Protein backbone atom coordinates (compact mmCIF):
# COMPACT_ATOMS: atom_id res chain seq x y z
CA UNK A 1 0.00 0.00 0.00
CA UNK A 2 2.85 2.34 0.96
CA UNK A 3 4.58 1.55 -2.33
CA UNK A 4 1.44 2.39 -4.26
CA UNK A 5 1.25 5.84 -2.63
CA UNK A 6 4.94 6.44 -3.40
CA UNK A 7 4.37 5.44 -7.04
CA UNK A 8 1.38 7.78 -7.35
CA UNK A 9 3.35 10.63 -5.77
CA UNK A 10 6.30 10.09 -8.15
CA UNK A 11 3.93 9.94 -11.12
CA UNK A 12 2.28 13.22 -10.06
CA UNK A 13 5.62 15.02 -9.64
CA UNK A 14 6.88 13.72 -13.02
CA UNK A 15 3.70 14.82 -14.81
CA UNK A 16 3.79 18.28 -13.28
CA UNK A 17 7.49 18.64 -14.16
CA UNK A 18 7.03 17.78 -17.82
CA UNK A 19 3.62 19.47 -18.31
CA UNK A 20 5.01 22.95 -18.93
CA UNK A 21 6.28 24.50 -22.14
CA UNK A 22 9.59 26.36 -22.13
CA UNK A 23 8.99 29.86 -20.88
CA UNK A 24 10.44 32.61 -23.03
CA UNK A 25 12.58 35.23 -21.29
CA UNK A 26 11.70 38.89 -21.74
CA UNK A 27 13.99 41.89 -21.37
CA UNK A 28 13.39 45.62 -21.77
CA UNK A 29 16.01 47.21 -24.00
CA UNK A 30 16.06 50.94 -24.83
CA UNK A 31 15.77 51.38 -28.60
CA UNK A 32 18.77 52.40 -30.71
CA UNK A 33 17.00 55.67 -31.48
CA UNK A 34 16.53 56.42 -27.76
CA UNK A 35 20.19 55.75 -26.91
CA UNK A 36 21.82 57.39 -29.91
CA UNK A 37 19.64 60.53 -29.87
CA UNK A 38 20.64 61.12 -26.22
CA UNK A 39 24.32 60.49 -26.77
CA UNK A 40 24.45 57.04 -25.15
CA UNK A 41 26.42 55.62 -28.06
CA UNK A 42 29.76 54.20 -29.11
CA UNK A 43 31.45 54.94 -32.41
CA UNK A 44 33.60 52.46 -34.34
CA UNK A 45 35.57 52.67 -37.53
CA UNK A 46 34.69 49.47 -39.37
CA UNK A 47 37.21 49.42 -42.23
CA UNK A 48 36.51 53.02 -43.18
CA UNK A 49 32.77 52.95 -42.40
CA UNK A 50 31.59 54.82 -39.31
CA UNK A 51 29.39 52.56 -37.17
CA UNK A 52 27.37 53.96 -34.27
CA UNK A 53 26.12 51.48 -31.67
CA UNK A 54 23.96 52.10 -28.58
CA UNK A 55 25.80 52.11 -25.24
CA UNK A 56 23.27 50.45 -22.92
CA UNK A 57 25.55 50.62 -19.90
CA UNK A 58 25.91 54.40 -20.19
CA UNK A 59 22.14 54.80 -20.72
CA UNK A 60 21.27 52.74 -17.65
CA UNK A 61 23.87 54.42 -15.48
CA UNK A 62 22.89 58.00 -16.25
CA UNK A 63 19.26 58.14 -17.38
CA UNK A 64 16.92 58.23 -14.37
CA UNK A 65 13.80 58.49 -16.55
CA UNK A 66 14.76 55.27 -18.30
CA UNK A 67 15.33 53.48 -15.00
CA UNK A 68 11.96 54.67 -13.71
CA UNK A 69 10.13 53.39 -16.80
CA UNK A 70 11.94 50.03 -16.81
CA UNK A 71 11.30 49.56 -13.09
CA UNK A 72 7.58 50.30 -13.53
CA UNK A 73 7.34 47.87 -16.45
CA UNK A 74 9.19 45.17 -14.51
CA UNK A 75 6.71 45.47 -11.64
CA UNK A 76 3.73 45.09 -13.96
CA UNK A 77 5.23 42.14 -15.86
CA UNK A 78 6.22 40.46 -12.57
CA UNK A 79 2.59 40.68 -11.41
CA UNK A 80 1.53 39.00 -14.66
CA UNK A 81 3.86 36.02 -14.00
CA UNK A 82 6.64 37.18 -16.32
CA UNK A 83 9.49 38.62 -14.24
CA UNK A 84 11.72 40.53 -16.66
CA UNK A 85 15.42 39.94 -17.16
CA UNK A 86 17.20 43.08 -16.02
CA UNK A 87 19.53 44.43 -18.71
CA UNK A 88 21.78 46.29 -16.28
CA UNK A 89 22.23 43.24 -14.06
CA UNK A 90 22.80 41.04 -17.10
CA UNK A 91 25.57 43.35 -18.34
CA UNK A 92 27.22 43.31 -14.89
CA UNK A 93 26.97 39.50 -14.71
CA UNK A 94 28.57 39.11 -18.12
CA UNK A 95 31.49 41.34 -17.13
CA UNK A 96 32.19 39.38 -13.93
CA UNK A 97 31.59 36.04 -15.68
CA UNK A 98 34.27 36.89 -18.28
CA UNK A 99 36.77 37.82 -15.56
CA UNK A 100 36.02 34.68 -13.53
CA UNK A 101 36.32 32.42 -16.60
CA UNK A 102 39.72 33.91 -17.41
CA UNK A 103 40.95 33.28 -13.86
CA UNK A 104 39.50 29.79 -13.37
CA UNK A 105 41.91 26.86 -13.57
CA UNK A 106 41.97 23.16 -12.71
CA UNK A 107 43.37 22.20 -9.31
CA UNK A 108 45.21 19.15 -10.67
CA UNK A 109 46.76 20.22 -13.97
CA UNK A 110 46.29 23.99 -13.82
CA UNK A 111 44.41 23.93 -17.16
CA UNK A 112 42.17 26.87 -17.97
CA UNK A 113 38.49 26.66 -19.02
CA UNK A 114 38.04 25.76 -22.69
CA UNK A 115 36.43 28.61 -24.60
CA UNK A 116 36.22 28.86 -28.36
CA UNK A 117 35.78 32.23 -30.11
CA UNK A 118 32.11 31.25 -30.62
CA UNK A 119 31.68 30.67 -26.86
CA UNK A 120 33.08 34.12 -26.17
CA UNK A 121 30.82 35.66 -28.84
CA UNK A 122 27.79 33.99 -27.26
CA UNK A 123 28.44 35.68 -23.92
CA UNK A 124 26.14 38.63 -24.64
CA UNK A 125 22.98 39.86 -22.95
CA UNK A 126 20.05 38.19 -24.71
CA UNK A 127 16.46 37.16 -24.24
CA UNK A 128 13.78 35.44 -26.29
CA UNK A 129 11.50 38.46 -26.47
CA UNK A 130 12.90 41.99 -26.49
CA UNK A 131 10.73 44.86 -25.33
CA UNK A 132 12.15 47.64 -27.49
CA UNK A 133 11.35 50.87 -25.68
CA UNK A 134 11.53 54.54 -26.52
CA UNK A 135 9.80 57.58 -25.13
CA UNK A 136 10.17 61.31 -25.34
CA UNK A 137 9.17 64.21 -23.16
CA UNK A 138 7.55 66.93 -25.25
CA UNK A 139 6.10 70.39 -24.59
CA UNK A 140 2.99 72.09 -25.87
CA UNK A 141 3.13 75.63 -24.50
CA UNK A 142 3.27 75.30 -20.70
CA UNK A 143 2.08 71.68 -20.84
CA UNK A 144 4.22 68.55 -20.83
CA UNK A 145 3.31 65.32 -22.51
CA UNK A 146 4.92 61.99 -23.29
CA UNK A 147 5.13 60.01 -26.51
CA UNK A 148 5.66 56.34 -25.83
CA UNK A 149 6.61 53.47 -28.17
CA UNK A 150 6.91 49.87 -27.03
CA UNK A 151 7.56 47.00 -29.45
CA UNK A 152 7.78 43.35 -28.44
CA UNK A 153 10.18 41.63 -30.83
CA UNK A 154 10.77 37.91 -31.17
CA UNK A 155 14.55 37.70 -31.03
CA UNK A 156 14.71 34.81 -33.53
CA UNK A 157 12.05 35.49 -36.12
CA UNK A 158 12.50 39.30 -35.80
CA UNK A 159 8.71 39.57 -35.85
CA UNK A 160 6.89 42.26 -33.93
CA UNK A 161 4.72 40.12 -31.64
CA UNK A 162 3.17 42.89 -29.54
CA UNK A 163 3.21 46.65 -29.60
CA UNK A 164 1.68 49.69 -27.97
CA UNK A 165 2.33 53.31 -28.81
CA UNK A 166 0.73 56.68 -28.38
CA UNK A 167 0.78 60.16 -26.92
CA UNK A 168 -0.34 60.98 -23.39
CA UNK A 169 -2.64 63.78 -22.31
CA UNK A 170 -0.78 67.11 -22.03
CA UNK A 171 -0.66 68.45 -18.47
CA UNK A 172 0.79 71.56 -16.89
CA UNK A 173 0.18 70.40 -13.32
CA UNK A 174 1.68 66.91 -13.28
CA UNK A 175 5.43 66.39 -12.99
CA UNK A 176 7.22 64.67 -15.86
CA UNK A 177 7.95 61.61 -13.66
CA UNK A 178 4.22 61.19 -13.01
CA UNK A 179 3.50 61.51 -16.73
CA UNK A 180 6.09 58.81 -17.45
CA UNK A 181 4.52 56.50 -14.88
CA UNK A 182 1.10 57.24 -16.35
CA UNK A 183 2.42 56.39 -19.84
CA UNK A 184 3.55 52.95 -18.68
CA UNK A 185 0.21 52.30 -16.98
CA UNK A 186 -1.65 53.50 -20.06
CA UNK A 187 0.05 51.18 -22.54
CA UNK A 188 1.00 48.00 -20.68
CA UNK A 189 -2.45 46.37 -20.72
CA UNK A 190 -2.71 46.80 -24.48
CA UNK A 191 0.81 45.42 -24.90
CA UNK A 192 0.13 42.43 -22.64
CA UNK A 193 -3.16 41.74 -24.46
CA UNK A 194 -1.21 41.37 -27.71
CA UNK A 195 1.47 39.29 -26.03
CA UNK A 196 -1.27 37.01 -24.72
CA UNK A 197 -2.62 36.53 -28.27
CA UNK A 198 0.90 35.66 -29.43
CA UNK A 199 1.25 33.00 -26.72
CA UNK A 200 -2.23 31.61 -27.41
CA UNK A 201 -1.35 31.33 -31.10
CA UNK A 202 1.89 29.51 -30.17
CA UNK A 203 -0.04 26.99 -28.05
CA UNK A 204 -2.67 26.48 -30.76
CA UNK A 205 -0.47 26.44 -33.87
CA UNK A 206 3.02 25.74 -32.52
CA UNK A 207 6.03 27.86 -31.64
CA UNK A 208 7.49 29.67 -34.64
CA UNK A 209 11.21 29.08 -35.15
CA UNK A 210 13.96 29.60 -37.71
CA UNK A 211 16.19 26.76 -38.94
CA UNK A 212 19.29 26.83 -41.10
CA UNK A 213 20.84 23.76 -42.72
CA UNK A 214 24.44 24.27 -43.77
CA UNK A 215 27.35 22.16 -45.09
CA UNK A 216 30.83 21.91 -43.65
CA UNK A 217 33.44 22.82 -46.24
CA UNK A 218 35.06 19.97 -48.19
CA UNK A 219 32.97 17.04 -46.91
CA UNK A 220 32.59 15.57 -50.39
CA UNK A 221 28.80 15.90 -50.81
CA UNK A 222 26.18 18.62 -50.81
CA UNK A 223 22.40 19.06 -50.56
CA UNK A 224 21.96 17.88 -54.17
CA UNK A 225 23.34 14.41 -53.34
CA UNK A 226 20.75 11.75 -54.27
CA UNK A 227 19.36 9.15 -51.87
CA UNK A 228 16.71 6.65 -53.09
CA UNK A 229 16.10 8.77 -56.16
CA UNK A 230 15.55 12.08 -54.29
CA UNK A 231 17.94 14.88 -53.47
CA UNK A 232 19.00 15.34 -49.86
CA UNK A 233 17.27 18.75 -49.76
CA UNK A 234 13.98 17.08 -50.81
CA UNK A 235 14.35 14.47 -48.07
CA UNK A 236 14.91 17.22 -45.52
CA UNK A 237 11.85 19.11 -46.76
CA UNK A 238 9.77 15.93 -46.46
CA UNK A 239 10.99 15.52 -42.87
CA UNK A 240 9.94 19.11 -42.12
CA UNK A 241 6.49 18.49 -43.62
CA UNK A 242 6.00 15.44 -41.40
CA UNK A 243 7.31 16.94 -38.18
CA UNK A 244 5.92 20.49 -38.14
CA UNK A 245 2.48 21.41 -36.78
CA UNK A 246 0.04 20.98 -39.70
CA UNK A 247 3.07 20.82 -42.01
CA UNK A 248 3.62 24.56 -41.66
CA UNK A 249 7.02 25.87 -42.70
CA UNK A 250 8.49 28.00 -45.41
CA UNK A 251 11.73 27.38 -47.27
CA UNK A 252 12.99 30.93 -47.62
CA UNK A 253 16.11 30.31 -49.66
CA UNK A 254 18.29 27.40 -50.72
CA UNK A 255 21.36 26.42 -52.74
CA UNK A 256 23.40 23.22 -52.85
CA UNK A 257 25.16 24.46 -49.70
CA UNK A 258 22.39 25.77 -47.47
CA UNK A 259 18.66 25.77 -46.75
CA UNK A 260 17.03 28.61 -44.82
CA UNK A 261 13.69 27.71 -43.22
CA UNK A 262 11.42 30.32 -41.67
CA UNK A 263 7.96 30.29 -40.07
CA UNK A 264 8.60 26.73 -38.97
CA UNK A 265 5.86 25.80 -36.52
CA UNK A 266 7.03 23.25 -33.96
CA UNK A 267 4.86 21.77 -31.19
CA UNK A 268 5.28 23.28 -27.71
CA UNK A 269 5.37 19.75 -26.24
CA UNK A 270 6.43 16.40 -27.67
CA UNK A 271 4.56 13.07 -27.41
CA UNK A 272 6.08 12.46 -23.99
CA UNK A 273 4.72 15.77 -22.72
CA UNK A 274 8.17 17.36 -22.60
CA UNK A 275 8.78 20.95 -23.63
CA UNK A 276 10.25 21.39 -27.10
CA UNK A 277 12.54 24.14 -28.34
CA UNK A 278 14.35 24.65 -31.65
CA UNK A 279 17.37 22.62 -30.58
CA UNK A 280 15.52 19.61 -29.19
CA UNK A 281 13.24 19.56 -32.25
CA UNK A 282 16.14 19.72 -34.72
CA UNK A 283 17.96 16.98 -32.83
CA UNK A 284 15.37 14.55 -34.25
CA UNK A 285 16.44 15.56 -37.78
CA UNK A 286 20.06 15.04 -36.75
CA UNK A 287 19.14 11.50 -35.60
CA UNK A 288 17.18 10.86 -38.82
CA UNK A 289 20.18 11.86 -40.96
CA UNK A 290 22.46 9.61 -38.94
CA UNK A 291 20.43 6.56 -39.99
CA UNK A 292 20.41 4.68 -43.30
CA UNK A 293 20.62 5.65 -46.13
CA UNK A 294 22.26 8.96 -45.14
CA UNK A 295 24.60 7.88 -42.31
CA UNK A 296 26.02 11.38 -41.93
CA UNK A 297 27.46 13.24 -38.97
CA UNK A 298 26.25 16.75 -38.22
CA UNK A 299 26.74 19.55 -35.75
CA UNK A 300 23.76 21.03 -33.95
CA UNK A 301 24.17 24.69 -33.12
CA UNK A 302 21.73 26.49 -30.86
CA UNK A 303 20.93 30.19 -31.11
CA UNK A 304 18.30 30.31 -28.35
CA UNK A 305 14.78 28.92 -27.85
CA UNK A 306 13.70 29.84 -31.35
CA UNK A 307 16.62 29.28 -33.71
CA UNK A 308 18.97 26.39 -34.41
CA UNK A 309 21.38 25.41 -37.19
CA UNK A 310 22.33 21.96 -38.39
CA UNK A 311 25.71 21.83 -40.14
CA UNK A 312 26.10 18.64 -42.14
CA UNK A 313 29.16 16.50 -42.84
CA UNK A 314 31.04 16.56 -39.55
CA UNK A 315 30.56 16.99 -35.80
Amino acid sequence: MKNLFTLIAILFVTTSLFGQAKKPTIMVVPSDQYCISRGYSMEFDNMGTKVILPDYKAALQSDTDLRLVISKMSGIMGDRGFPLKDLEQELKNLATQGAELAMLSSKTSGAGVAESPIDALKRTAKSDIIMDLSFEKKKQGPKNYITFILNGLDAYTSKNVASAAGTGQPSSAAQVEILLEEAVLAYMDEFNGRLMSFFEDAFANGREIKVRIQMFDGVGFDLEEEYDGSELSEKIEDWFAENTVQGRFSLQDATENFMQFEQVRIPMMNDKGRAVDARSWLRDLQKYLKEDPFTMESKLYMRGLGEAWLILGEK
Partner: protein
Amino acid sequence: MTRKIQITFILLLAIVVSTNAQSRKERKAYYGSKYNVEIETLGVGNDGTKLFKVWGYGKKVNDAVFEAKRNAISAAIFKGIPAGRGASPTPALTTDIDAETKHQEFFDEFFSDGGRYLQFVNLSGDGEPKESDKIKMKKGYKVGIAVSINHAGLRKYLEDKGVIRSLSSGF
Protein backbone atom coordinates in the same frame (compact mmCIF):
# COMPACT_ATOMS: atom_id res chain seq x y z
CA MET B 1 -60.21 41.87 -58.19
CA THR B 2 -60.65 44.69 -55.62
CA ARG B 3 -61.00 42.08 -52.86
CA LYS B 4 -57.77 40.44 -54.03
CA ILE B 5 -55.90 43.77 -53.80
CA GLN B 6 -57.41 44.35 -50.33
CA ILE B 7 -56.18 40.93 -49.11
CA THR B 8 -52.70 41.51 -50.57
CA PHE B 9 -52.58 44.90 -48.89
CA ILE B 10 -53.62 43.45 -45.50
CA LEU B 11 -51.06 40.68 -45.84
CA LEU B 12 -48.32 43.16 -46.68
CA LEU B 13 -49.32 45.31 -43.70
CA ALA B 14 -49.22 42.29 -41.41
CA ILE B 15 -45.72 41.43 -42.62
CA VAL B 16 -44.50 44.99 -42.08
CA VAL B 17 -46.04 45.17 -38.60
CA SER B 18 -44.66 41.77 -37.56
CA THR B 19 -41.20 42.68 -38.89
CA ASN B 20 -41.31 45.93 -36.97
CA ALA B 21 -42.51 44.19 -33.80
CA GLN B 22 -39.72 41.67 -34.08
CA SER B 23 -37.08 44.33 -34.47
CA ARG B 24 -38.42 46.10 -31.41
CA LYS B 25 -38.20 42.84 -29.46
CA GLU B 26 -34.68 42.32 -30.72
CA ARG B 27 -33.80 45.83 -29.70
CA LYS B 28 -35.13 45.14 -26.21
CA ALA B 29 -33.01 42.00 -25.94
CA TYR B 30 -30.07 44.01 -27.18
CA TYR B 31 -30.52 46.45 -24.28
CA GLY B 32 -30.10 43.58 -21.86
CA SER B 33 -27.01 42.27 -23.62
CA LYS B 34 -23.65 42.55 -21.94
CA TYR B 35 -22.21 43.64 -25.28
CA ASN B 36 -24.34 46.77 -25.30
CA VAL B 37 -22.53 48.39 -22.37
CA GLU B 38 -21.85 52.06 -23.03
CA ILE B 39 -18.47 53.21 -21.70
CA GLU B 40 -16.38 56.32 -21.94
CA THR B 41 -12.82 56.26 -20.62
CA LEU B 42 -12.14 59.14 -18.24
CA GLY B 43 -8.36 58.82 -17.98
CA VAL B 44 -5.49 56.57 -16.95
CA GLY B 45 -6.24 54.94 -13.61
CA ASN B 46 -3.72 54.46 -10.83
CA ASP B 47 -1.76 51.19 -10.51
CA GLY B 48 -4.02 48.32 -11.56
CA THR B 49 -7.21 50.40 -11.75
CA LYS B 50 -9.34 51.60 -14.65
CA LEU B 51 -11.30 54.80 -14.64
CA PHE B 52 -14.32 55.24 -16.87
CA LYS B 53 -17.94 56.36 -17.12
CA VAL B 54 -20.50 53.63 -17.58
CA TRP B 55 -24.27 53.69 -18.20
CA GLY B 56 -27.04 51.52 -16.79
CA TYR B 57 -30.81 51.16 -17.25
CA GLY B 58 -33.46 50.75 -14.55
CA LYS B 59 -37.00 51.57 -13.54
CA LYS B 60 -35.64 53.73 -10.74
CA VAL B 61 -32.43 55.77 -10.67
CA ASN B 62 -30.96 53.49 -7.96
CA ASP B 63 -31.64 50.37 -10.04
CA ALA B 64 -29.90 51.97 -13.00
CA VAL B 65 -26.88 52.86 -10.82
CA PHE B 66 -26.58 49.26 -9.65
CA GLU B 67 -26.85 47.98 -13.18
CA ALA B 68 -24.15 50.43 -14.23
CA LYS B 69 -21.77 48.97 -11.61
CA ARG B 70 -22.50 45.48 -12.89
CA ASN B 71 -22.00 46.70 -16.46
CA ALA B 72 -18.62 48.16 -15.50
CA ILE B 73 -17.29 44.78 -14.37
CA SER B 74 -19.05 42.92 -17.19
CA ALA B 75 -17.42 45.24 -19.77
CA ALA B 76 -13.96 44.68 -18.28
CA ILE B 77 -14.44 40.91 -18.54
CA PHE B 78 -16.26 40.46 -21.86
CA LYS B 79 -15.95 43.61 -23.91
CA GLY B 80 -12.80 45.52 -22.98
CA ILE B 81 -12.39 49.20 -22.22
CA PRO B 82 -11.96 51.63 -25.11
CA ALA B 83 -9.10 54.11 -25.47
CA GLY B 84 -9.56 57.72 -24.42
CA ARG B 85 -8.03 60.67 -22.63
CA GLY B 86 -4.48 59.35 -22.75
CA ALA B 87 -5.36 55.73 -21.97
CA SER B 88 -4.81 53.05 -24.61
CA PRO B 89 -7.53 50.39 -25.10
CA THR B 90 -7.67 47.59 -22.55
CA PRO B 91 -8.59 44.24 -24.09
CA ALA B 92 -11.34 42.09 -22.55
CA LEU B 93 -10.07 39.87 -19.74
CA THR B 94 -11.47 36.79 -21.40
CA THR B 95 -10.19 35.89 -24.83
CA ASP B 96 -12.55 32.93 -25.12
CA ILE B 97 -15.76 33.95 -26.87
CA ASP B 98 -17.65 31.10 -25.16
CA ALA B 99 -16.40 31.94 -21.66
CA GLU B 100 -19.84 33.02 -20.48
CA THR B 101 -21.52 29.72 -21.37
CA LYS B 102 -18.55 27.60 -20.29
CA HIS B 103 -18.54 29.19 -16.83
CA GLN B 104 -22.22 30.05 -16.60
CA GLU B 105 -22.58 28.84 -13.02
CA PHE B 106 -19.64 30.96 -11.90
CA PHE B 107 -20.88 34.10 -13.64
CA ASP B 108 -24.47 33.63 -12.39
CA GLU B 109 -23.18 33.68 -8.84
CA PHE B 110 -20.55 36.35 -9.47
CA PHE B 111 -23.06 38.79 -10.98
CA SER B 112 -25.94 37.97 -8.59
CA ASP B 113 -27.44 40.79 -6.49
CA GLY B 114 -24.80 41.78 -3.95
CA GLY B 115 -22.41 39.33 -5.66
CA ARG B 116 -18.63 39.23 -5.63
CA TYR B 117 -18.38 41.65 -8.59
CA LEU B 118 -19.00 44.56 -6.20
CA GLN B 119 -15.66 43.83 -4.53
CA PHE B 120 -13.88 45.11 -7.64
CA VAL B 121 -15.78 48.38 -7.92
CA ASN B 122 -13.47 50.70 -5.99
CA LEU B 123 -15.24 53.95 -6.36
CA SER B 124 -18.41 55.02 -8.01
CA GLY B 125 -20.36 58.22 -8.13
CA ASP B 126 -23.42 56.38 -6.82
CA GLY B 127 -24.87 59.33 -4.97
CA GLU B 128 -27.51 61.24 -6.89
CA PRO B 129 -26.18 61.35 -10.48
CA LYS B 130 -25.91 64.72 -12.23
CA GLU B 131 -28.99 65.76 -14.22
CA SER B 132 -27.04 65.44 -17.47
CA ASP B 133 -26.20 61.82 -16.54
CA LYS B 134 -29.81 60.96 -15.64
CA ILE B 135 -31.97 60.51 -18.69
CA LYS B 136 -35.69 59.85 -18.21
CA MET B 137 -36.94 57.26 -20.64
CA LYS B 138 -40.38 55.87 -21.41
CA LYS B 139 -40.16 53.13 -18.79
CA GLY B 140 -37.45 54.24 -16.39
CA TYR B 141 -34.03 55.85 -16.40
CA LYS B 142 -30.70 55.67 -18.18
CA VAL B 143 -28.01 56.72 -15.73
CA GLY B 144 -24.27 57.31 -16.19
CA ILE B 145 -21.77 57.02 -13.31
CA ALA B 146 -18.01 57.44 -13.05
CA VAL B 147 -16.36 54.28 -11.72
CA SER B 148 -12.88 53.13 -10.82
CA ILE B 149 -12.48 49.36 -10.92
CA ASN B 150 -9.72 47.18 -9.50
CA HIS B 151 -8.82 45.68 -12.86
CA ALA B 152 -5.64 43.91 -11.69
CA GLY B 153 -7.51 42.38 -8.73
CA LEU B 154 -10.38 41.26 -10.97
CA ARG B 155 -7.97 39.62 -13.42
CA LYS B 156 -6.12 37.82 -10.60
CA TYR B 157 -9.41 36.59 -9.12
CA LEU B 158 -10.64 35.21 -12.46
CA GLU B 159 -7.24 33.58 -13.10
CA ASP B 160 -7.33 31.91 -9.68
CA LYS B 161 -10.84 30.63 -10.36
CA GLY B 162 -9.70 29.20 -13.70
CA VAL B 163 -12.13 31.35 -15.65
CA ILE B 164 -9.44 33.09 -17.70
CA ARG B 165 -5.90 32.14 -18.68
CA SER B 166 -3.01 34.04 -17.15
CA LEU B 167 -0.25 35.44 -19.36
CA SER B 168 2.14 32.80 -18.05
CA SER B 169 -0.22 29.81 -18.12
CA GLY B 170 1.15 26.83 -20.01
CA PHE B 171 4.74 27.84 -19.31
